[in-house]
């Protein structure tokens, strides 16, 4: 579930669910290991579609949409957090300059076409260093003080981007801006420090919302009020209780949104969310396993289910590859071959997961890769792994450490399975330390640790630039896996200078091939999921990398209730 990322995942699988899975797992483990080896490479077939086309009926305006949500916004200030808790509704109160296609205008789940949001059009200079955005006319800020419905101008966007660059979690993206001009009220010209053809994709990320400068000037921060130009106004935010959004009658996209009110109810427990869906208190539900979907369908047979196939794995084994022994590619390859990923998929994710890769596959190929396609070092070959480790001078293994934070209960089992594989196959003794969330983050992102960490890539971003240059370039502050490979640096930089989509795919392919060959990031299996919604909800389908209930929430402006 990459669109939700690590932060969101913390709450997704709870204790109850884990106990259930553990109970199943004990029995299943025996069955699968003993009898299921033959089907290991294939996922169980799900009877649910991975794409639900938009409704052909004319939309009906009105109604109230309700969702029991596990996420709470830590703060309202988009400069301070990338949390899905905030962007599950900030994406509706505010707009970005550009966006990805919504479900009712997309050709399918993998459609990554960029559309104008606040910008009507955009183009770059021939050297891709200067980007000019023409803003939509007639866009108004929400009709509440201190904006009182005034019109949006280019200077607002400029101010917002400057604030993002100045401080906060988005500074990396916006610091590549060298300067900005506003030749007229509806034109913004952005000068970049270096060419980047993927800059508009970065602006289409769900977190790059345009906020109101007046609020920042009056309050000194954005922690109290969220005022934007979006389809909904923030009517109420009561921490740990509810967020209520009311339809913005002055929204520039006339006729939209269709639903009058959208209420997000803070519901941290998965059993309660499930009960809320069953009793009709919630219209939307996310489930992690096929078994759970079947259980819900027994009481709610009319519920609509979309299978959500992950296009990347957010977690993997990060090695201190700038230090011995992990700076030796043979050691990394040996470790990768010693790990039985398919066993993890079958036991931990009930056979319904992906073996793991870091760059979304749809940027370089159409179909989901199989484990075999990831290359020789990603196959479970313990004998060859031992031989390779001996060649690297570690025939008797070695001692190392691994720290992690348990984002979801299966993760502890996953870490322990890796520990067992490394001990059994390579005689590597891994001392595991389980940390709390803040300690883990502090240590992990500081990048001064030795040994191993259970690494992550955050879930808000869907762009190719984010997933390649920003996570893999040696100079990027997001290079948590400590990749330091000249070829990767060259390819990720070249990607930023290549406008042709076909060539981009070729380069992205080269990047992942290099990543797999050098085992620069050792991705681990991850599960898929299911989006379940009440039968009266129309145009709810999620797209690849953009779950409608999460970072892809802006699509809710297109949703309507057929009641």
């Amino acid at each position, binding site marked *: 579930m990459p669109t939700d990322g690590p932060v969101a995942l913390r709450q997704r699988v709870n204790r109850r669910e884990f106990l259930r899975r553990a109970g199943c797992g004990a029995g299943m483990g025996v069955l699968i290991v003993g009898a299921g080896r033959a089907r290991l490479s294939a996922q169980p077939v799900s009877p649910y579609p991975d794409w639900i086309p938009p409704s052909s009926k004319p939309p009906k305006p009105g109604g109230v949409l309700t969702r029991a949500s596990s996420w709470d916004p830590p703060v309202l200030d988009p400069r301070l957090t990338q949390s899905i808790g905030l962007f599950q509704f900030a994406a509706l109160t505010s707009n970005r300059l550009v966006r990805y296609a919504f479900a009712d205008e997309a050709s399918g789940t993998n459609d990554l076409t960029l559309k104008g949001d606040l910008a009507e059009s955009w183009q770059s200079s021939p050297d891709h260093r200067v980007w000019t955005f023409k803003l939509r006319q007639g866009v108004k800020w929400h009709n509440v003080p201190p904006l009182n419905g005034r019109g949006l101008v280019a200077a607002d966007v400029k101010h917002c981007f400057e604030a993002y660059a100045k*401080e906060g979690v*988005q500074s990396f993206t916006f610091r590549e801006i060298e300067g900005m001009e506003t030749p007229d009220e509806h034109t913004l010209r952005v000068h970049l420090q270096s060419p980047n053809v993927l800059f508009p994709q970065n602006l289409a990320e769900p977190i790059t919302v345009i906020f109101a400068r007046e609020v920042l000037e009056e309050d000194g921060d954005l922690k109290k009020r969220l005022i934007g130009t979006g389809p909904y106004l923030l009517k109420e935010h009561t921490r740990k209780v509810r967020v209520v959004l009311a339809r913005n009658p002055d929204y520039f996209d006339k006729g939209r949104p269709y639903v009058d009110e959208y209420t997000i109810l803070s519901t941290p427990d998965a059993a*309660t969310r499930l009960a809320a869906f069953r009793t009709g208190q919630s219209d939307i539900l996310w489930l992690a396993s096929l078994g759970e979907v079947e259980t819900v369908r027994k009481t709610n047979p009319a519920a609509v289910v979309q299978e959500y196939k992950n296009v990347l794995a957010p977690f993997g084994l990060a090695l201190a590859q700038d230090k011995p022994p992990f700076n030796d590619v043979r050691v990394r390859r040996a470790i990768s071959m010693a790990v039985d990923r398919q066993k993890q998929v079958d036991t931990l994710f009930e056979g319904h997961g992906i073996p793991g890769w870091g760059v979304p596959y749809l940027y370089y190929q159409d179909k989901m890769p199989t484990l075999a396609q990831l290359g020789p070092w990603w196959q479970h070959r313990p004998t060859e792994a031992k031989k390779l480790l001996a060649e690297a001078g570690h025939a008797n293994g070695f001692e190392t450490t691994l720290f992690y934070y348990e984002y979801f209960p299966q993760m502890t089992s996953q870490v322990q399975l890796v520990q067992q594989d490394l001990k059994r196959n390579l005689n590597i003794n891994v001392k595991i330390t389980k940390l709390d969330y803040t300690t883990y*983050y502090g240590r992990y992102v500081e990048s001064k640790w030795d040994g191993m960490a259970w690494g992550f890539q955050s879930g808000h971003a869907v762009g190719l630039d984010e997933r390649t240059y920003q996570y893999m370039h040696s100079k990027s502050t997001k290079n948590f896996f400590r990749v330091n490979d000249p070829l990767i640096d060259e390819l990720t930089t070249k990607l930023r200078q290549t406008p042709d989509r076909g060539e981009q795919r070729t380069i992205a392919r080269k990047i992942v091939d290099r990543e797999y060959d050098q085992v620069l990031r050792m991705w681990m299996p991850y599960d898929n999921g299911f989006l379940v919604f009440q039968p009266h909800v129309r145009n709810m389908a999620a797209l690849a990398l953009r779950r409608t209930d999460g970072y892809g929430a802006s699509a809710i402006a297109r949703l309507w209730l057929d009641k």
Partner: protein
Amino acid sequence: MHKYVIRRLLLAIPVLLLSSLIVFGLMRVMPGDALTALMAESGNVGERELRKLREDLGLGRPYHEQYLIWLWQLVSLNPGYSIFTNEPIAAALGKSIPVTIELATLAMLLGLVIAIPVGVLSATRADRPADYVGRVVAVSGLSLPDFWLGTLVITFAALWLHWIPPLGYASLWESPWRNLQQFLLPAAVLGFRLSAATMRMTRSTVLEVLREDYVRTAWAKGLEGRIVVYKHALKNALIPVVTIVGGQLGTLLAGTVVVETIFALPGMGRLTVEAILFRDYPVVQTNVMLVATTLVTLNLLVDLTYAWLDPRIHYQ
């Protein structure tokens, strides 16, 4: 009596001071801080900027300064602001305390309504079927964890009744009926668990008291069984029960997080746990001090109740 109360209140000061030092120290010993929790995940914030933000929030000051500032804020009843949300802590507590108090009070009432009669029944019908049933109920209450019982209750309510308490907390004053629906099940879950220990204690102390000479005398005088049990025996059997109930009330104020989570109630438990996870120092410290003060006060009240229950007890 007055002197005793004053002495106890004075003794509470070092206890609370020590508590404040412990919670302050423990929070600082824990790795990471609110900024790490909030921003570090993005990987976008440089060390220099983080340092500046820490300075802005006062996290860069020497520990003794931070402690004294916080202590002064506590004494002046102005605990400051959450460093995570910027919300005044008093406001955050003002929203969460009523939820927890209501939940704890309802749970306690339900617990006592179950525990005292069943405990007395068990004692007066010792080793008979009614006693066995009461003891099984008590052992179940002790053995079944809140999270399991809560999950079961909400799941079966949805399956069998097609109803669960309405989500989205409503206060008692806003909407009493909705509020009652929201609190009844969680209070029953908590109350059932609380009733177990009280029930067992009531049974054993009533059994003990029923063997006392004065009770035998009461029987010998030909008094009605109800009068003997409830007027003569029960009151004297209540001292250990009151001790347990007092302790339970303190635990309830600090430990309803599981039930609050399952039933989506925005009480103190959720507030504190979130604050600990995100290293929101002032919120954690204030909440802990509030609980510590409540426990100290409850202990004093429990001790004072002894004198009321047993006139032979005098405080000097």
